[in-house]
């Protein structure tokens, strides 16, 4: 098989793995304000942990590039919020109930997959022997990302299938970006820190502007503190070993 086809195939497997993150929500049926708050807190911790990892990786390639990327990511979220708000875009026909926040988290996580896809492609470029190992790692690493998306979608009333679907969709840019990044490693490497910074900036800003303020309205501070900080620690450990 062609090397780039292998990259694409492996990338698809990692995208499908993201759907597994929705599975814990089979058991969450009755949705109270507190459940939404707790799910938001878990998503916030996972996203903060993920962006710690992205920044740590981005700064290996270039500090200022990562910073520029992060600022752009922040501005992107601000712009998207404005657009969604002004045009009152309705995505409920796509199973994306829950309005602005549900849409935003899917958009943010999808963008973050673009950056990750480039990272995967560049890493594959380093040597094909590691390909399977890297794929496994990314696949497992994607599961909590599906969890983060589902944690926001499900309590807002999305069906389980919609959660799985949107989780997978959010990871599709990974294989799509991994292939060109693998084929043209030298061209993509300089862009990588901007992309990683962009994803991290977007995620941190989304956590601070959307997820946490809503969480504090419905659950007590100690509960949110425990959920955010432990899921952050868990995400960082997962990333380290995968």
């Amino acid at each position, binding site marked *: 098989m062609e090397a780039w086809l292998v990259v694409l195939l492996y990338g698809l497997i990692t995208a499908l793995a993201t759907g597994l993150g929705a599975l814990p929500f089979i058991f969450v049926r009755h949705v109270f304000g507190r459940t939404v708050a707790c799910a938001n807190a878990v998503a916030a911790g996972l996203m903060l942990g993920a962006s710690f990892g992205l920044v740590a990786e981005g700064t290996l390639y270039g500090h200022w590039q990562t910073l520029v990327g992060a600022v752009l990511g922040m501005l992107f979220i601000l712009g998207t919020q404005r657009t969604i708000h002004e045009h009152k875009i309705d995505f409920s026909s796509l199973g994306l109930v829950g309005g602005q926040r549900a849409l935003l988290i899917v958009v943010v996580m999808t963008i973050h997959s673009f950056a990750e896809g480039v990272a995967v492609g560049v890493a594959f470029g380093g040597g094909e022997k590691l390909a399977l190992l890297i794929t496994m790692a990314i696949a497992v690493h994607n599961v909590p990302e599906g969890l983060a998306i589902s944690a926001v979608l499900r309590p807002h009333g999305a069906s389980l299938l919609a959660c799985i679907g949107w989780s997978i969709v959010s990871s599709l840019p990974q294989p799509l970006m991994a292939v060109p990044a693998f084929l043209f490693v030298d061209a993509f490497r300089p862009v990588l820190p901007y992309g990683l910074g962009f994803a991290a900036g977007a995620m941190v800003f989304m956590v601070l502007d959307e997820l946490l303020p809503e969480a*504090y309205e419905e659950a007590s501070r100690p509960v949110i503190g425990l959920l955010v900080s*432990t899921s952050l620690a868990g995400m960082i450990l997962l990333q380290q070993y995968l």
Partner: protein
Amino acid sequence: MMFEGTVFVSRLWAVVLYSGLAAACAALGVLPFMARRRLPSAWLGWADALAAGLMLGASYILVVEGIERLPLAETFGTLAGIATLYATHALTGIWKPGLRPARPDGSGPTDKLWLRNAIHSSAEGVSIGAAMAVDLDFGIFVALALTAHNVPEATALCAYLVPRGVRLLPAALLCVAANLGQIVLAVLTFLMVAEQPALLPAALGFAAGALIYLVVVELLPDSFAKTGHTTIAVLTSVALGAVVIFRGMI
């Protein structure tokens, strides 16, 4: 032992000096009150947001430093830090550590406020002590980030004290006093890690976990309660980004 003779002594002095500097700079938090007696609520929200971003930045660099040594120990330390802060808050009854108004008879949450600040600054002390055991530059950097953090944090404390009739000089001194626990914990943590270097990754994790918990439980909800969340998100991100980029430059 991690350090030999004179290196150990000079590093110990650095721990005392920089944690002392961090505590002393809390006095600067009183400055805005020289212009006006009551600050607009939004300003206090901004102060909390800056403090939150700087603290989150400090926890990021501690995590990175710890995780590249021994990931499992770092994570164990982080969970221990979170659990310790949670338990301390529960035992001392600081469940909702917001700055509430005092009761008419003068008894109010002032004592709880003190306790809250003492616990908070102790966690910062652990961070400085653990960071100083890594190397001098890193220790100084973490201490300076927390020094900057202490200023807006002290402003929030003064916003409670000054309108209740405390003069500026005593208010400034009280802010420094609220941060003295920092020096003690910094020294203790440094001595412990210097004696048992194997504890370093866990100590870094402990510090990071404690700081993250404090950001999420105290600073962010305080700031969201005072002004709009988009402004808070911008200020917190900027402060966080500043710590990360300065760390990259040294």
